[in-house]
């Protein structure tokens, strides 16, 4: 059953690659990264980690692989990272947030809304961590001019 989910995830991610006009040589790579991200997310949930933490780990994994492959095939990293993180997008939570607000159940809506925001933030956090790993020595000055 899980295997079928992975195949569907691969096909859907490749479909998303076509929507974003990802170049042909990166389409299947993007699909593969999406499958890995979905596997990490499902694995985290299976072993009892919280959805937010699992999303962050999956996003980190996807972004790290995207950075490696982008260097290897000489392609901008976004073309791989965007399809890679799409299976993590909290579309379901966002929809139920909207549904709760339409029904006038504001408390439920807020609950779902906070979870949506946290999951989106977790995706961003994963991207940021991967970026930090790959930009050692290239970051921008932030506090003191220590090299002076």
């Amino acid at each position, binding site marked *: 059953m899980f295997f079928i989910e992975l195949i569907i995830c691969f096909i859907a991610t490749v479909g*998303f690659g076509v*929507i974003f006009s990802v170049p042909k040589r990166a389409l299947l790579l993007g699909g593969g990264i999406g499958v890995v991200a979905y596997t990490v997310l499902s694995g985290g949930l299976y072993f009892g980690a919280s959805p937010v933490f699992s999303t962050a780990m999956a996003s980190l994994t996807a972004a790290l692989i995207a950075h490696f492959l982008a260097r290897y095939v000489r392609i901008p990293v976004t073309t791989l990272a965007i399809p890679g993180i799409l299976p993590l997008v909290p*579309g379901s939570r966002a929809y139920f947030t909207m*549904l709760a607000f339409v029904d006038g159940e504001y408390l439920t809506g807020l609950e779902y809304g906070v979870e949506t925001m946290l999951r989106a933030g977790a995706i961003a956090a994963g991207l940021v961590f991967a970026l930090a790993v790959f930009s050692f020595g290239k970051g921008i000055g932030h506090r003191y001019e220590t090299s002076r």
Partner: protein
Amino acid sequence: MGKSDKVMDICLLAGEIMLTNGAETYRVEETLERMAKAASMKNVHCFATTTGIFLSFEEEGKDDHMQMVRVDDRLQDLNKVTEVNQVSREFVSGELDVETAEAKLEDIAKASVPYPLWLIHLSAGIAGSGFSFLFGGDWPDLLPAFIAAILTSITVVEFERYLKVRFAAEFMAAFIGGSVAIALVFFGVGDNINQIVIGSLMPLVPGVPLTNAVRDLMSGDLVAGVSRGAEALLTSLSIASGVAFAISLFL
């Protein structure tokens, strides 16, 4: 026309193509600075935001140059970003001279999307139905989600082509996708209405601005990052209000 004018032209053309088609701000700035430096310009500075690019440099012993381009459209065509990236890489390494680089960039600017429109709609359908399954749908939900997602994609593309209104296209597409999903379930195609509606909306997800916002904020382009984040937020809100409209009308 001197050499520096020519260099300015190809740099700004490259930057405009990249920024229009969904490159990150830092990539635009870095590419332009590298290209200008490779053409032996001095004192190169580039400033790009989500909506415009400024580039200034001086030619040794001659005048200073400073120009800007304004970027209105924001599309999602990552293929063009990749191709411009390739051209700039070859230009910096000296494989291309200024004239061939300009010709190549103009070809890229004129080229259409790498995939035909029917294939984009079809893959929107496939992606939508796939995600409706992943979000907890069932086998019978695949077909209605497929149809609704295709109609969503067609609506957003055609609405933008003829009426050219930002955010309204997403609103209409979400409304039509949601309505079609509700209608299909009403006529007995598919069971889980929530999963079908989610699937039909997935092709509208603003993936490019979302990812670029994070990237821009991280590399210190605060203005560009915040504005891209606001764009992604507004797109999501217009999708949500479109489908909320459909649900409160028909459900």
